[in-house]
């Protein structure tokens, strides 16, 4: 792990020949911090010129050490689109090279480089004609919940009525991210933009929790009884590779065609499936 990073000299900022919107590096300054769980926090960055983004897109983050060593990672965008502002939620990976800096060391006013927004595949915007009236199923493993919460917030903001279920798999209660947000999004099922939230604990469930701790199962992804259709029109799965493969298998066994499933995988992480 490296302790200090500085953005690169703007002069060698663009290795890319023709930067078009979204794919050149911009300098970002940390302006806000919010703890999300014991092992994760949300970083708000001021990024002059950031054009805004679509729910589910991600951003590349680059840190450069004083000796020129640089490391680059991808993070999902964690807030509804706001010009000149980027937020990411970072989960601490104990042996990671970048996440310990972002989760424990980086301070307000520190800077790094960002590139984006990136990706149009793993995106859900309210009103997407390919999805129609839904329903939509969101399946998260660990910090894979970040882009899915961004989608939920965007539809809440839009008052979207598509029936939506989030199935969120975590190891134990300490690894729950966005606990309060998820409660707010699901507390009143009749409020516009509300979603069902189903928590799946894989190692340790809280006392009195009805479902015993176990890996994601076919039953966990069953649609709520009130859905008009037996299957979602679109499924988004985000998590570690093994989790995404497992969830995709369950979906195929539940007769989901591949063209309804959109997945995004991330690298080794401290979160369990």
């Amino acid at each position, binding site marked *: 792990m490296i302790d200090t990073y500085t953005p690169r000299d703007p002069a060698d900022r663009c*290795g*890319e*020949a023709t*930067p*078009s*919107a*979204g*794919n*050149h590096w911009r300098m970002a300054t940390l302006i806000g911090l919010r703890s999300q769980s014991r092992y994760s926090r949300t970083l708000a960055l001021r990024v002059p010129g950031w*054009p*805004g*983004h*679509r729910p589910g*897109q*991600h951003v*590349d983050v680059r840190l450069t050490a004083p000796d020129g*060593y*640089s*490391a*680059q*990672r*991808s*993070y*999902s965008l964690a807030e509804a*689109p706001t*010009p000149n502002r980027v937020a990411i*939620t*970072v*989960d601490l*990976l104990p*042996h*990671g*090279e*970048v*996440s310990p800096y972002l989760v424990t060391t980086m301070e307000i006013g520190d800077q790094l480089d960002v*590139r*984006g*927004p*990136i*990706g*149009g*595949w*793993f*995106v859900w*915007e309210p009103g997407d004609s390919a999805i129609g009236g839904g329903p939509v199923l969101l399946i998260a493993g660990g*910090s*894979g919940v*970040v*882009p899915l919460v961004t989608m939920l917030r965007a539809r809440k903001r839009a008052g979207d009525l598509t029936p939506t279920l989030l199935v969120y798999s975590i190891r134990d209660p300490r690894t729950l991210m966005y606990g309060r947000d998820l409660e707010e999004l699901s507390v009143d099922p009749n409020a516009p933009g509300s979603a069902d939230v189903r928590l799946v604990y894989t190692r340790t469930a809280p006392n009195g929790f009805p479902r015993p701790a176990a890996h994601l199962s076919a039953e966990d992804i069953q649609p709520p009884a009130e859905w008009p259709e037996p299957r979602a029109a679109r499924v988004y799965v*985000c998590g570690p*590779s093994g989790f995404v493969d497992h969830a995709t298998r369950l979906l195929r066994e539940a007769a989901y065609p591949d063209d309804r499933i*959109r*997945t*995004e*995988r*991330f*690298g*080794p*992480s401290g979160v369990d499936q």
Partner: protein
Amino acid sequence: MTSDLSTPAVPEGGPGSHTVLDGNAAAGEFAGILVSDPTTVTVRCGSCGATQAFAELRAYLGGPGTVLGCRGCNAMVARVARTPRGTWLDLSGSSSWLFLPTPAPRPGR
């Protein structure tokens, strides 16, 4: 998504350098070269003929370049390497790339 992986620019053989991700994680590298968003492009594998979204390709990010493989047969379909001489784009493993007619709506509305 939090992919705590080193990119091709970083010489390392550390933990995670061989983890297989997907095309979403490689999109930033390709977006620097292509005019439009790569993730929604339908790519046909030159080896087995299977088609898949760029986002669904297998992505190897820890080596000397960003390498994309077919999710069906695992053959290499595309590769980007940044070198001092310039950026190499190798598409020899793919037979076609279908770009959707409607560009994605721009953000910031």
